[in-house]
């Protein structure tokens, strides 16, 4: 454990933070390509707005309530507005300044609510979404991050292992998505109309960016450029590769083809599952974690049709299920020799760690699921969470943002007059569009 300032670690963590930042645009592309053409911009914006809102909230109070020392449930208030932090003050037990740690963790706080958006494609009012993530970050993410990672957080002290965010990020976002979709209506035509991804190359770009950024997310969570980071880096690659293969083989057997979307989805499932476990398992264990996660998630994404809930882009099926798989597999595959001392069932550690992992998983499932459902219900009852069915049919991009994702038409463009016209509000544009139609 380094105790003095480390220039190497600090440089490494600054780069890692930037890598995690790029995951949110990556996620936006990953989701954006999967929706129909009339909703791509809204899908992108649901992620990008998180970069805006959460960054400001994090600076104002998020970092303080998540990571300042406080009690078992919530952090302290000494770091409100990022004040009271010395320029060279180091994060406890590391060689990096607190500001670096705060920046790194900020990127986690941004992507977690953004993950939820995939379940809400095509139908959620943009203002309602913006309000939702502000409240959800405050009531759900900041506290849960404290429970899991804060040195006095109760799950951390209980011994739940969540190396890089399987519980705090993926199960948290996945079950929140489930809570919200149970509180609001489905997309019009769910299970009836074909809703094909409109741009699979965009999905692949997004998956590639996620995979790349995830090295910062996972290996960066070692908070030091050391051996643990190295194992985590390798495990991230290994599990992701194995999960992609697992998903592809599953769908080849079940549905007849190896698909592009399957490859992208399998890779993300592997990334999710290795996130909590990568600091505890060996590279061989990472192959097992990846394969199991790939097959489990490929099977889980079909459940929404059977149980009739509109998890539009499979946030529950991939992030919640993948997060649970990864978190619980620690109880089996933890070697006790990589980054943490706890041993899993297969390495002579008995069932103790598995029990702890179950407690961690269940706590977050119940808390985040229930609070997210209530939040969405409250917003839906007051300001309305979803757009009108007419707007959804004609396209959420036009209704909420007054923009069009792709303009390939040579003849249907607007006239110069419209460009010059004073358009001060989206309402006016809407009226124009209506008049033109």
């Amino acid at each position, binding site marked *: 454990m380094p105790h003095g300032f480390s220039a190497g670690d600090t440089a490494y963590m600054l780069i890692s933070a930037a890598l995690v930042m790029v995951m949110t645009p990556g996620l936006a592309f990953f989701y954006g390509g999967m929706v129909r053409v009339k909703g791509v911009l809204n899908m992108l914006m649901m992620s990008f707005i998180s970069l805006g809102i959460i960054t400001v909230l994090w600076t104002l109070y998020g970092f303080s309530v998540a990571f300042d020392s406080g009690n078992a449930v919530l952090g302290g208030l000494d770091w409100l507005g990022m004040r009271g932090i010395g320029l060279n003050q180091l994060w406890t037990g590391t060689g990096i300044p607190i500001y670096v740690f705060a920046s790194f963790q900020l990127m986690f706080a941004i992507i977690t609510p953004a993950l939820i958006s995939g379940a809400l494609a095509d139908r959620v009012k943009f203002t309602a979404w913006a309000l939702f993530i502000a409240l959800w970050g405050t009531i759900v993410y900041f506290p849960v991050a404290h429970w899991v990672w804060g040195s006095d957080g109760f799950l951390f002290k209980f011994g739940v292992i969540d190396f890089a965010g399987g519980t705090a990020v993926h199960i948290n976002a996945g079950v929140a998505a489930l809570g919200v979709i149970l509180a609001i209506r489905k997309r019009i035509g769910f299970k009836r109309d*074909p809703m*094909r*991804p409109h741009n699979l190359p965009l999905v692949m770009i997004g998956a590639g960016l996620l995979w790349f950024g995830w090295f910062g997310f996972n290996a960066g969570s070692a908070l030091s450029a050391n051996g643990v980071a190295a194992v985590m880096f390798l495990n991230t690659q290994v599990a992701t590769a194995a999960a992609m293969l697992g998903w592809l083989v599953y*769908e080849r057997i*079940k*549905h*007849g*083809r190896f*698909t592009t*979307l*399957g490859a992208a*989805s399998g890779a993300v499932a592997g990334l999710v599952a290795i996130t909590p476990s990568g600091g505890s398992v060996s590279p061989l264990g990472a192959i097992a974690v990846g394969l199991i996660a790939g097959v489990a998630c*490929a099977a889980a*994404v*079909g459940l929404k*049709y059977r149980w009739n809930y509109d998890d539009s882009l*499979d946030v529950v099926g991939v992030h919640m299920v993948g997060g649970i798989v990864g978190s619980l597999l620690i109880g089996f595959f933890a070697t006790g020799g990589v980054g943490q001392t706890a041993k899993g069932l297969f390495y002579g550690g008995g069932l103790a760690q598995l029990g702890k992992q179950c407690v961690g998983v269940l706590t977050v499932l119940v808390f985040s699921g229930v609070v997210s459902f209530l939040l969405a219900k409250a917003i839906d009852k007051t300001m309305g969470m979803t757009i009108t069915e007419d707007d959804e049919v004609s396209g959420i991009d036009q209704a909420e943002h007054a923009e069009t994702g792709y303009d390939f038409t040579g003849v249907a463009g607007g006239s110069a007059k419209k460009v010059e016209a004073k358009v001060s509000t989206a309402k006016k544009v809407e009226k124009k569009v209506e008049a033109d139609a």
Partner: protein
Amino acid sequence: MKLITAVIKPQRLDEVKAALEAFGVHGLTVTEASGHGRQRGHTEVYRGAEYTVDMVPKARVEVLVEDEDAEELIDVVVKAARTGKIGDGKVWSVPVETAVRVRTGERGPDAL
């Protein structure tokens, strides 16, 4: 005059165009179209969800000809568009009252 419309497989468009030019047709209009006859569509699977794609991409070729050339031109198009497999498309003709060349104002067969 007659308007010949051919809805064909897009991959046969080059052959049809070449055949029409060889026949002496000076102008034609091509649009991307989609539809199906007896062929029906195909199935795609995304994350286990099956989508039947009913509409198959087609090319729609339109040519104006004088009455006496119509039958022969239809044969030319049919021959060039045929692969012998299902989904080769259809060709039909309808009578046309008048046609005007916009640039010169010529009317009737002179406009072709």
